[in-house]
């Protein structure tokens, strides 16, 4: 042994490189740094064969002392054999021998990028690293990064919730809790753009102005809220209910294109609206008229289907309020009437719903 590997030299190496291995020419570990011995636990490393202790991943083919000696000075990647396969970075250099004799190799290791796993698996302390090692600083930066990321994540969560709330507010009619015109444009635009089939009911309250004029705005507001509840009561969760303004409402029903069922739904709704609505000792009475139009998907623009529902509503009002009229049936009836006048059969009148 040279003085460098004597007791005082060894203590110095342990301090400078607490994760080094001194391997003799025959591949036996002569000495292991204290942190490596700590990781190994009860199993003494000195005396073990190096290649029983660790397995080399890179460079490939390092399986004996000769091949390891040829890789001296190059970056090594290896891992512990055994239940805990801690990974290391390493570098090997020839160790000084006595005279011309082969002193074997000094292999110094560090955790490299596997530091976090190693800290967790072996509960290492700051004192397990050389005072010059940046491992503790790296852990500090990791901890700081995790803290800051967490703050960003919380901030993003708060901003996201605030955005959803703002969007909901922007799409909501505050009096009734139904959608507003912006919601209507958004939903109708989406359905038309996606080519989805849907039914549209344009509902106008009848005698609402009379309630407002005789019983006041508070009564009017109450009636609007009750009407909104009635609409929710006859529709599904996936339907969109819109207060388009004043006493005018739109029911958008995705997938619902059966004219008869839409008319039945509208009549049920009108019947509910005709129930007397008590308000502060008085009774409000209203009704409703509904115009129905359907889109089979991709066959018309938003303005066209709105105009059709509007035309059907106008016909319902003209026919004497409290009624639901379907755009398709309206046109079939007109064709029949015109045919009766001119004396020619109406083409396709029966199936034009």
């Amino acid at each position, binding site marked *: 042994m040279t003085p460098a590997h004597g007791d005082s030299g060894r203590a110095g190496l342990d301090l400078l490189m607490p994760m080094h291995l001194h391997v003799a020419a025959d591949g036996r570990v002569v000495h292991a740094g204290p942190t490596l011995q700590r990781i190994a636990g009860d199993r003494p490393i000195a005396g073990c064969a190096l290649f029983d202790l660790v397995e080399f991943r890179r460079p490939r083919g390092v399986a004996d002392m000769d091949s390891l000696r040829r890789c001296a000075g190059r970056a090594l990647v290896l891992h512990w054999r055994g239940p805990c396969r801690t990974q290391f970075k390493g570098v090997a250099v020839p160790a000084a021998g006595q005279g011309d004799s082969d002193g074997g190799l000094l292999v110094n290791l560090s955790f490299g990028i596997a530091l*976090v796993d190693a800290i967790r698996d072996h509960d290492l302390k700051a004192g397990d690293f050389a005072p010059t090692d940046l491992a503790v600083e790296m852990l500090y930066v990791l901890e*700081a990064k995790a803290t800051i990321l967490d703050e*960003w994540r919380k901030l993003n969560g708060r901003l996201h919730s605030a955005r959803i709330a703002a969007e909901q507010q922007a799409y909501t009619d505050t009096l009734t809790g139904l959608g507003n015109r912006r919601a209507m444009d958004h939903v109708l635009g989406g359905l038309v753009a996606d080519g989805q089939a849907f039914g549209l009911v344009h509902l106008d309250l009848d005698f609402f102005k009379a309630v407002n004029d005789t019983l006041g705005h508070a009564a009017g507001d109450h009636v609007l809220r009750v009407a909104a509840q009635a609409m929710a009561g006859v529709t599904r969760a996936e339907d969109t209910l819109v207060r388009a303004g004043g006493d005018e409402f739109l029911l958008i029903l995705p997938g619902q294109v059966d004219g008869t069922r839409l008319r039945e739904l509208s009549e049920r709704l009108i019947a509910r609206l005709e129930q007397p609505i008590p308000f502060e000792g008085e009774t409000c009475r209203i009704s409703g008229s509904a115009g129905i139009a359907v889109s089979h998907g991709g066959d018309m623009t938003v303005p066209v289907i709105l105009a059709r529902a509007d035309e059907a509503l106008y016909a319902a009002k003209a026919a004497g309020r409290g009624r639901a009229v379907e755009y398709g049936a309206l046109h079939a009836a007109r064709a029949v009437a015109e045919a009766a006048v001119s004396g020619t059969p109406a083409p396709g009148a029966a199936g034009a719903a």
Partner: protein
Amino acid sequence: MHGLVNRAIQCFVRDTYGADTWERLARAGDLPLAGFEAMFIYDDAVTDRMLEAAVVVLGRSRDSVLEDLGTYLVSHPNVETLRRLLRFGGETFEEFVESLDELPRRAALALPELDLPALEVVPEAGRDTELRVTCNWPRAGFGHVLVGMLRTLADDYGALVLLDHEGREGDVEWIRITVMSGSFSTGRPFRLAGTWAAP
């Protein structure tokens, strides 16, 4: 001022005196009722208004409010992460104090835009248990926060110390630290592996 500082003061008031007191303070100081965002930068005047309102609402002197803030920052479970980050500064209290001048650089590693006072540690000639820390910042009062932090961190490390805020001259505040015993009690445990190392 960095939102982290404002938020720290806000959380100190909320966690120590309750949400109602924070609301009163926010109203008194014309501060955002919902509180501060840790990742935003606020005008310095906001922090000044907050501290002035804290003196009035809490009925305490500015110095003692700031010292309590320092205590809170390293002892309350809601800000445990700051205590952990500070404990990376040294394995013993003495090591920690000696590395105080690295604190602004450590903070900058985490948050480059966080502006902290320059700290300098000066050993007292002939007395190896005594140190003076100078805290150089145009804004008065950080020294009191530091006293609160150091007092609590000493307990955390298990050290017995005497701490004195010795006043201010210009932009500089002076703190005297006397370490009576570095290992007076067992202190609180500290492991390098934080929650981020969870498998």
